[in-house]
């Protein structure tokens, strides 16, 4: 800066020039993000706004008209929507904790320094995650069929005397869905914990051992607090994932029996494609998912996050 001033000898014009250059630099900088910003606006924000507008309309197919808040009011008196919401929350409250605990458990086991064939076990538990959602859902459907492997297995072990109707009993069908999602996503969450565990200083465990801490104490007083941000992250991701649950329900039970396993996303699909199409109301239901994701994430931050 001083060099420039010396050379021109005119501080005033020099600063003017640098202002101009700064503006130009800014302009070029803005140009760089313009494409990304335009892309996001066009492919994210624009559809979001259109969907919001759509959620205030109702009508069959192309005959949409603005109805104000009617769709949102309709939600509260729609038993199918309430059933879908209840089911989704049951999945959420039962499945996410089970999965998080299992993933934590596996990751600690697999992080053991003395464990042999570590790579093999890690791969084995992560592998479900690379399977296609539809393909694994179809396989689960056959496993849990009346003539399926699960029933055969349980009968051979004399745990049950006659085949269970896994897919057509309202309670068992929910269990089937929860079992399927847990199988598919535990390994995925485990990987996050495993990588976070690599950053936990081993000397802390050594110190704890010297002080006589048991494995349980080490787990609860070292591992869990150190993993807290990751646990928060995975539970938010899993919550969002569960709220958007679709493929498994669609392929394993098709929402049935009745609507005992119907998820919100599947109800959106039904409203758009299975019944006489009402895209307006379907958009309203999908905005409910958006609102829920925001609320639940805030809640989780409040409960588990640091208030910094």
């Amino acid at each position: 800066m001083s060099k420039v001033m010396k050379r021109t000898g005119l501080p005033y014009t020099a600063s003017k020039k640098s202002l101009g250059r700064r503006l130009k630099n800014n302009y070029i900088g803005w140009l760089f993000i313009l494409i990304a910003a335009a892309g996001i606006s066009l492919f994210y924000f624009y559809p979001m706004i259109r969907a919001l507008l759509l959620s205030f309309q109702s009508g069959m197919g192309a005959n949409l008209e603005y109805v104000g808040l009617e769709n949102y009011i309709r939600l509260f008196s729609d038993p199918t929507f309430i059933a879908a919401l209840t089911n989704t929350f049951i999945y959420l409250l039962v499945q996410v904790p089970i999965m998080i605990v299992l993933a934590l458990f596996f990751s600690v086991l697999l992080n053991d320094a003395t464990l042999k064939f570590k790579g093999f076990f890690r791969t084995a538990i992560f592998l479900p995650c690379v399977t296609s959602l539809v393909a694994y859902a179809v396989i689960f459907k056959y496993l849990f069929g009346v003539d399926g492997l699960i029933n055969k297995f349980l009968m051979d072990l004399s745990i049950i005397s006659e085949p269970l109707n896994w897919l057509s009993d309202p309670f068992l069908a929910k269990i089937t869905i929860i079992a399927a999602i847990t199988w598919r996503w535990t390994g995925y969450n485990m990987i996050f914990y495993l990588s976070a565990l690599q950053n936990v200083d081993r000397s802390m465990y050594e110190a704890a051992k010297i002080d006589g801490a048991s494995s349980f104490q080490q787990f609860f007083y070292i591992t869990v607090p150190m993993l807290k941000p990751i646990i928060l992250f995975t539970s938010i991701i899993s919550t969002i994932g569960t709220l958007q649950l679709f493929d498994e329900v669609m392929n394993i039970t098709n929402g049935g029996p009745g609507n005992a396993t119907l998820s919100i996303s599947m109800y959106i699909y039904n409203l758009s494609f299975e019944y006489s199409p009402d895209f307006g109301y379907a958009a309203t239901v999908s905005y409910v998912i958006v609102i829920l994701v925001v609320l639940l994430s805030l809640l989780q931050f409040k409960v588990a996050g640091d208030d910094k």
Partner: protein
Amino acid sequence: MMKFLYWKKTGLFLLTVVTLLALAACSSDDASGSSDTGEEPDKITAWAWDPNFNIAALELAKDAYEEDLDLEIIENAQDDIVQKLNTGLSSGSMKGMPNIVLIEDQRAQSFLQSYPDAFYPIGDYFNTDDFAPYKLAPTSLDGKQYGLPFDTGVTGLFFRTDYLEEAGYTKEDLTDITWEKYIEIGKDVKAKTGKDMISLDPNDLGILRVMIQSAGSWYVEDDGKTVNLVDNEPLKKAFENYKAMIEADFVKANSDWSQFIAAFNSGDVATVPSGNWIAPSIEAEESQAGKWEVAPIPRLDLNGAVNASNQGGSSFYVLNIPGKEKAAEFLGATFGSNEAFYQDLVLDVGALGTYAPAADGEAYQAENEYFSGQSVISDFSEWTEEIPSVNYGLHTYAIEDILAAEMQNYLKGKDLEDVLADAQAQAESQLK
């Protein structure tokens, strides 16, 4: 150098702006609907599902058509067709839409009313009086004929002669019976042979629809809109029959199509009450040749109920886009009026249309070796004429999902009157 770079960036900027403008222009005309302008295309496209049945029928029609026509037949799953039509038509852009599309009768009204002007009336291209009346109601709207009726979906009671014989029943014992009688026989068959009587998917209430249409009733009244569940006597009977079947313990549960097929191909069930389109799937198991016959479908125990009903069945529609005249002429000249073509259809594809003049043809009288020498086609076309005509209306599948949920409550012991009243209330609040 600097200047060059600068220009390059401005160029990039301009490019972005142009792209944005172009995209905005694409999305801005969402209200314009279908366009009648545009050039006549060289190629006519048709969408349908089921390669052994609908696609094969279209191929046959293409060969039978005397004019020179470049027809491209594209196979899609039915769900995909429904989805593509809904997204395509509601976007207002008819780009990528086919000229001819097959739509299931029970869904047709939903499309015709959801997307006015998207379909082309083809009533002038064939004589509607030649077709079975029950096919015309769902395929027309406001007095205009939009669909060309295709397969009948007439139902029959397919049964294993050997199992029934073992239990002491003949074909006469199964002919023109009520569902109550059917259940009674089913219990007997189960007790004497150990075989299940029927295979059902608990998520699919198709059998209820078969039952109520035999009594001329539907989930909605004749206007196609007024929900008709609570005082619907046939529906009540159908619910009772359904529960009786489940409780009789002769139902083999299936959860999808392939398990359904496997249930009878493996010889596990004694009867298959179904639309006639199931015949090719039954015949696929060659080891059971000569062990099957078809009786008329059971009826509800009500006055006016007949031993004939309908399940599935679809029709062809022409979209209101360039090429519509060509497409309509093609349909009119083949499915709409060609008797010889219908004979081939029966012989080569096994597809039974609803074109009445074709029923006198030779192919319709042929005996079917697989079904113990029965003249299956002739029987089916006879029953077709008796199918009561009902207006399926718009909301068959929406109402059926509500009923499916209530059916679970009913099976658990909830009172039938309450079940139907609750379903009625739900349906009314949902389908405004």
